[in-house]
């Protein structure tokens, strides 16, 4: 048993739902108690889907448990077949149904339906949402994909996008365009948008594009083994990764890696002098393994940030993330415990977090700006406008998204200069976030208390801040104050200094100067 406050991933059957909901003509019959239907709202509300997910739940109740829940399952399966007339059905159990051991796969098989019935074994007490999606897509491919002749033109399949994915909708469009510019057509996009009959045609493509390893790696491997289809391993998020991806595709397709980069703006935006202030910004990265890997490269090589920590919540990618952390010279954080992530961020005091919606909340609490780079998703992660993460437009979107939470370059200088100005005080926050500007703090009799930096962790037990140093610290603009506090305390601790004076503060500043 493990106490969990917030979770990064749902149970594995939610992963199966993401696959089924992304597809067309497929139905999922899920043996589950009433209440598990909550999962529908993830799709209809967060993603604003205009259809119910294609899922029939048996919604058994306590009174059914003494009787015949297997019969209930078969009725639900028959009703779903009659009503929705799917091309194929996937069947499985949620966590509770797994305990009553009705074997939905076996039951469905005995019903003699004239369509493919694909049983899913998703161990709810061991695995999670991404595994569920990966395994479900793999089983669908394994059951439905047939050997077929390759298309005359060079084509590929785009694999991995699902319902409720982080920007999957727009990544499909961006990659389709990019590949088209290279002279490569898309055979099938799956699971999102594909029907079972299209899955049958996967083998006609010359190679596969593995868009999101989290949700399609098992299928990519199987297709390579069975149909000899190679697959791409670079996820084209960021400028460098997109260029590598283009080279990889050109190799697989036997064509020239030539492409018009006219639309790409990130490199110039990053090189232009206004971006100088981004230099060495200390960032912490957390999310799914794939997006963190991509974001680390962008952060360091394309934005000029300093990566001070990184991690992922999906253990399937622990090895990759450990290797990545080693390359970046930081400690990897592999956990799905939200409190542990919060503690790590609090200790590292980064200037920005690149994380999930969870880290956005952590950032809000600690007063650290945050940009979202990965699922788990929120209604905000499905913007009306076109905003991919992949390809050249994806890189442009990422530049804007990551810069937005920060105080703008010139404004940062002005804040340093006029930090005691009564109107232009630094507590006001970035000027382009008007709605969030708090009232100026009222000087009060208990100023020392009310001005205390609530977001800062308490000083280590054996170090105290002298009053004038504490006051000096407050003159430092808010967006670097946390770092200054932490650096000074580390500096003092390392030197066995018990009391932090103004001199200690500036000695530490000089020590950490870059």
């Amino acid at each position, binding site marked *: 048993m493990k*106490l*969990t406050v*917030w979770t990064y991933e749902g149970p594995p059957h939610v992963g199966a739902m993401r696959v089924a909901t992304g597809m067309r003509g497929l139905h999922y019959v899920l043996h589950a*108690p*009433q209440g598990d*239907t909550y999962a529908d709202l993830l799709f209809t*509300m967060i993603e604003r889907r205009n259809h119910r997910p294609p899922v029939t739940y*048996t919604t058994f*109740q306590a009174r059914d448990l003494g009787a015949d829940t297997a019969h209930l399952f078969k009725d639900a399966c028959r009703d779903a077949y009659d009503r929705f007339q799917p091309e194929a059905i996937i069947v499985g159990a949620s966590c509770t149904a797994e305990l009553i051991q009705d074997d939905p796969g076996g039951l469905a098989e005995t019903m003699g339906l004239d369509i493919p019935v694909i049983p899913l074994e998703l161990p709810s007490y061991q695995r*999670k949402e991404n595994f569920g999606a990966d395994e479900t897509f793999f089983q669908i491919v394994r059951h439905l994909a047939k050997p077929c002749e390759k298309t005359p033109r060079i084509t590929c399949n785009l694999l991995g996008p699902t319902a409720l994915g982080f920007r999957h909708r727009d990544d499909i469009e961006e990659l389709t365009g990019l590949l088209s510019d290279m002279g490569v057509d898309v055979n099938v996009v799956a699971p999102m948008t594909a029907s079972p009959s299209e899955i049958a045609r996967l083998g006609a493509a010359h190679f596969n594009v593995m868009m999101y390893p989290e949700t399609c790696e098992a299928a990519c491997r199987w297709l390579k083994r069975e149909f000899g289809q190679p697959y791409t391993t670079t996820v084209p998020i960021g400028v460098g990764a997109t260029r590598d991806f283009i080279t990889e595709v050109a190799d697989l397709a036997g064509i020239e890696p030539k492409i018009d980069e006219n639309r790409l703006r990130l490199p110039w935006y990053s090189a232009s002098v206004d971006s100088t202030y981004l230099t060495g910004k200390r960032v912490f990265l957390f999310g799914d393994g794939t997006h963190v890997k991509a974001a680390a490269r962008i952060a360091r090589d394309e934005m000029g940030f300093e990566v001070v920590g990184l991690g992922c919540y999906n253990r399937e990618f622990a090895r990759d993330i450990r290797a990545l952390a080693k390359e970046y010279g930081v400690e990897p954080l592999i956990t799905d415990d939200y409190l542990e992530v919060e503690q790590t961020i609090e200790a590292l005091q980064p200037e920005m977090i690149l994380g999930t919606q969870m880290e956005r909340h952590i950032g809000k609490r600690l007063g650290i700006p945050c940009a979202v780079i990965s699922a788990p998703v929120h209604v905000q992660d499905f913007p009306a406008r076109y905003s991919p993460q992949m390809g050249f437009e994806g890189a442009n979107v990422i530049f804007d998204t990551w810069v937005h939470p920060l105080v703008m370059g010139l404004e940062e200088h002005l804040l340093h200069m006029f930090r005691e100005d009564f109107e232009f005080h630094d507590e006001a926050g970035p000027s382009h976030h008007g709605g969030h500007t708090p009232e100026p703090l009222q000087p009060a009799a208990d100023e020392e208390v009310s001005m205390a930096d609530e977001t800062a962790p308490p000083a280590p037990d054996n170090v105290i801040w002298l009053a004038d140093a504490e006051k000096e610290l407050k003159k430092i603009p808010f967006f670097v104050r946390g770092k200054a506090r932490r650096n000074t305390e580390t500096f003092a601790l390392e030197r066995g200094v018990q009391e932090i004076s103004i001199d200690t503060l500036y000695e530490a500043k000089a020590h950490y100067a870059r």
Partner: protein
Amino acid sequence: MNKPANIANGGCREAPILKERGQREVFCGLTGIIWLHRKMQDAFFLVVGSRTCAHLLQSAAGVMIFAEPRFGTAIMEEKDLAGLADAHEELDREVAKLLARRPDIKQLFLVGSCPSEVIKIDLSRAAERLTQVHAPHVRVLNYSGSGIETTFTQGEDACLESMVPILPTTEAKELLLVGALPDVVEDQAIGLLEALGIGPVRVLPAGRADAMPAVGPETKVALLQPFLGETASALTRRGAEIIEAPFPFGEEGTTLWLRAIADEWGVTPEHFDAVTAAPRARARKAVAQAAEHLNGKSIFFFPDSQLEIPLARFLTRECGMEAIEVGAPYIHKGLVGADMDMLQTDCVSEGQDVDKQLDRCRAARPDLTVCGLGLANPLEAEGLTTKWAIELVFTPVHFYEQAGDLAGLFSRPIRRKELLKVAS
């Protein structure tokens, strides 16, 4: 409007009920934790369940709570199920860790879930044991919010029921209000009752563990919500008497509810009118504004929060709507009988077969459909106008001063549809 409702004219208490069995598109009782943990400020709700339970709570809460919330899930793992770990020892360890980290917690609810019920983890035994371990600082109670036993708001019923046996005993004649309402609404109710000379007024659940009410043979109970049947029974067993009345939604409902309590305390009609006249007039005025958009419109309720019957009564009688179908997860005539007496509708349905009900809804093309979040956008995409039901339990809607807001929740989607000039 000043006289009691005309109940001879076509209530639906005795009308046949369409009972259905099939897929139910409803939340489980765990969902109640979302509002219960805000109400009871020193309580923690520990669900003993699966990743699905944790995911449900998070999805229903919309990840809107910044701080560490006062609820969590002890997620069972493979080793707990295989008998490799003793579930009770594991639970004791997690509870000890939690209470050490959160010394502000005075009440701990162990909440049963579908998996914990199926593998029969005895949470009442665990609660007794943990109460002894952590007494006197923390009191540990247990109830089930599992989907196999409870539907959505029944979770609050199960929670409050679990508190009844430990309430102190009193011989005093007191009014006990039962149901977790936002403080602002609760204060309004108490203000009105005190102005009528009714009291002392106690509330279950109280905001803090040390303020819990007492119960005894002279206790009169007024329910605030139509889903507290088990709590009402438990209070009856402690000698309390339940005051039957329509629920306090809208001007009429609030007046009848107050009148039923006032009768128990012998409040004169003159005094009653003097106290209620001004808020009643305000409520009528506020409802009338929203009702402009609702008058003559048809409404269809999918089963969700159990509020359907009292709300349909309010919308048909005070806002001029026509109820095509009023669906409720279950119908307890001992609770909603008084509302049913005043409700005219073409169809009352209990339970659900969601696909068949969707067929009926599409055929009827109601002007407004009240349904859960899983159905709302799909129905909107089919051209229907919807009101998602969970807002009705998250928003202050009881009593006179909220009557206009309540009507507004239903008129807003209709007004919005009229405003938008671009087809979707």
